[in-house]
């Protein structure tokens, strides 16, 4: 959801639904009061600020300008969350794998691409076919119209003949 409505950065929190999902996965069938959930959401905000701040200091002391995952892990360690490091490392490994797969997948897609001249040729072919079909259709319709017109004429002249002979009879009688 874009926060274009002028939200302060300070009002940011992790979305409640995401927190709910995590809690549900780890404590299935356990009820959690709303104000308890609210508290956890806010604790997350504090946690992120805490780790970022510490990592930032570690980064400043190093010769790097950008906070790296290593800085994050050092921050976790120094703040007493060293037990999280193993799983953080695992996610980073998966990260790299996904990035690698994406690059492979997109280069495969590029190789499948049809060159432009071939595309143009196919387009011309399709247009020619379409024109031909249109012409045939138009001709058929014209023929049908002609036939219909002829039949109409035939019917009309028959009706006329029948009508006029009747008139003659009537005239002779009176």
């Amino acid at each position, binding site marked *: 959801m874009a926060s274009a409505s002028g939200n302060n*950065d*300070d009002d*940011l*929190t*992790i*979305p409640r639904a*995401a*927190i709910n999902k*995590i809690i549900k*996965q*780890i*404590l*299935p069938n*356990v*009820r*959690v*009061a709303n*104000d*308890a959930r609210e*508290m*956890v959401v*806010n*604790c*997350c*905000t*504090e*946690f*992120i*600020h*805490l*780790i*970022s*701040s510490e*990592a*930032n200091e570690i*980064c*400043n002391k190093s010769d790097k300008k*950008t*906070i*790296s*995952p290593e*800085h*994050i*892990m050092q921050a*976790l360690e120094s*703040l*007493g*969350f060293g037990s*999280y490091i193993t*799983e*953080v490392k*695992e*996610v*980073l490994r*998966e*990260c790299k794998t*996904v990035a690698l*797969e*994406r690059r492979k*997948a997109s280069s495969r897609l590029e190789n499948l691409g049809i060159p432009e001249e071939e595309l143009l040729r196919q387009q011309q072919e399709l247009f020619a076919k379409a024109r031909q079909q249109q012409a045939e259709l138009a001709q058929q319709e014209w023929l049908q119209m002609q036939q219909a017109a002829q039949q109409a004429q035939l019917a009309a002249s028959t009706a006329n003949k029948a009508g006029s002979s009747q008139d003659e009879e009537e005239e002779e009688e009176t």
Partner: protein
Amino acid sequence: MEELESGVAVAEPGQSLQLEAEAEAERPGSAPLPGLHHKLLRLPLSRIKGLMKADPDVSLASQEAVFAIGKATELFVEVIAKDAYTFALQGKRKTIQRKDVDNAVDATDEFAFLEGTLD
């Protein structure tokens, strides 16, 4: 899965499960690439990045750093939820209440930074 005395199963952290591909950090809604079936994080990266940037002193963070904090935050939620649940059980309740989370905060040294949150 460990089972508590009440018979409710509790998942170990990191036992979390497959889901679908989240190809790019900044576009959580993007369609997964065919063949990839792992969602790396349950928290939205863009929001985590926003929270980091809310501190004016914090310099640029790499995308991997955002992932790292994201994963750490997920683990944090799991830990505090489990701790709070323990307190609920002690109080013979099946619903985790605000005071259980407060107790969890008080009981752990590393959570000292949370004193006074939401007061």
